């Protein structure tokens, strides 16, 4: 019993930085989980990745102006991300370029600007920090940012939930009843950018996408309805957060990859055993019903 306590509980009791990281993970799970689920449902699973690259030049500009300052880098990242989302959205609307192609083009442009800025004005250490972050180094300001973004995301998602689902399900119908699909879509893309920016101090831009997507993709394999998938992906993201922190504490691993690898492991396992979409349950069929 004491062994289990030492393993799971005492790291968080003994160390303030672990408690802070735990709170950060909870906030990230609450914000990123639902956003990721909507990305998956809208068949935009790779969009999170694209957007995570798109925020880089903004963060770099923030760094150049104010050094390693979280508000400056976050604001820069947010502005760059929203700019890419807006430009890609406009290009999709007014030309024949499809949305995925348009996003690919603009995020690559943005990424190139970002790498140029970082390599001219920063050191590699800074770049690595932006790309990989560290949840164990989360300070009060970062914690406030992450939890603020999570709260804001949940409120906005609650507001735009119905039209957002309908726009994914049946866009022509939404237009026919006079709903403006574009506005909801744009609001949603802003949430994606916000959550990536929030995740970036804790996990880095690349790892933040992992916490957003992996639990959401896994959720679809386990539960049938949107409501339950939302709960599942938040829960799984948080569990992976706790587990990853403990792994990183006990084995001295970097925390970001530990969290994402745990989520990835769960995904791999689900591919085989998940009742709804997994491979094995589809082979080992339960006996069919009468009607």
């Amino acid at each position, binding site marked *: 019993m004491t062994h289990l306590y030492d393993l799971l509980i005492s790291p968080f009791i003994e160390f303030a930085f672990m408690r802070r990281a735990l709170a950060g993970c909870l906030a990230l799970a609450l914000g990123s989980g639902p956003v990721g689920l909507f990305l998956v449902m809208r068949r935009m699973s790779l969009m999170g990745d694209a957007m995570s690259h798109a925020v880089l030049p903004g963060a770099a500009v923030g760094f150049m102006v104010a050094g390693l300052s979280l508000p400056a880098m976050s604001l820069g990242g947010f502005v760059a991300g929203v700019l890419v989302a807006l430009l890609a959205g406009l290009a999709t609307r007014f030309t024949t370029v499809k949305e995925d192609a348009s996003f690919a083009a603009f995020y690559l442009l943005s990424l190139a600007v970002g790498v140029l800025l970082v390599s001219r004005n920063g050191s590699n250490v800074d770049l690595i920090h932006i790309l990989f972050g560290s949840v164990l180094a989360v300070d009060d300001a970062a914690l406030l940012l992450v939890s603020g973004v999570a709260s804001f995301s949940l409120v906005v998602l609650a507001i735009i939930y119905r039209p957002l689902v309908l726009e994914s399900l049946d866009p022509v119908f939404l237009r026919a009843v*006079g709903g403006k699909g574009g506005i909801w879509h744009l609001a949603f893309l802003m949430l994606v950018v916000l959550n990536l920016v929030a995740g970036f101090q804790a996990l880095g831009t690349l790892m933040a996408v992992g916490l957003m997507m992996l639990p959401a993709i896994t959720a679809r394999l386990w539960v049938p*309805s949107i409501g339950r998938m939302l709960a599942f992906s938040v829960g799984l993201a948080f569990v992976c957060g706790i587990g990853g922190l403990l792994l990183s504490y006990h084995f001295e691993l970097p925390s970001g990859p530990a969290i994402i690898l745990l989520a990835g492991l769960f995904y791999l396992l689900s591919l085989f055993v998940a009742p709804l979409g997994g491979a094995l349950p589809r082979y080992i069929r339960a006996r069919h019903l009468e009607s």
Partner: protein
Amino acid sequence: MSVRVENLTVSYLRHPAVHHASGSFAEAEATAIFGPNGAGKSTLLKTMIGALKPDSGHVNLGPFKRKDIAYLPQQSEIDRTLPVSVHDLVATGLWHQTGVFGKVGRKQRAKIQEALQAVGLVDFAERPISALSTGQFQRVLFARILLQDAPLILLDEPFNAVDAKTTYDLLELVRRWRDEGRTVIAVLHDYEQVRAYFPYTLLLAREIVAWGKTELVLTDLNLRRAAETAAHWHERAPVCRVDEEAV
């Protein structure tokens, strides 16, 4: 006063899909839109609901407003992989009542149940839409239209790949809507369905070939003309001068 199209042209990449079409739909009646593939039938419906912008001319909805339209999209436009239940999909028919925030209460639930009953899917409410057959799904979409309770009903190829029994049941719903004084406009591909259930027909082959009582429109001569028009579309067509000549 009824729904009218006035010198309507809608095009894709400058090639008109509907070309200088004018006329009016019979009110409180059922009109079939008939014609070869690529004749602009779906384009016309989409322009009527405002999803496409005309190059010139316009659709005059007459006594109706946009929210008086119930529209049945082609099934391919709906993402059926989403984890949504039959009940929830039908409930979207209440959009004008509920909007973004409104509650679906007991009264609305009863109405949804009633609509599912009318299309013979009362036991299917909690099924995910991904588990339905094409015919069952079409019944669900008709249930949504029942719920919308709209005076103007537009159906885009409602019976594609739908079995005979389902087609018959749904056509009976069309007859019921007509009897209730609703205006029904449907894109169809089957002569017999048109003759049996649609007193009026618009024969469209990018341009209007004929428009009026079904027995006068669906003649061999008209159908041949529609097929010929369809066969004469050019990649390098010259710029159309009809509007300038009219001025």
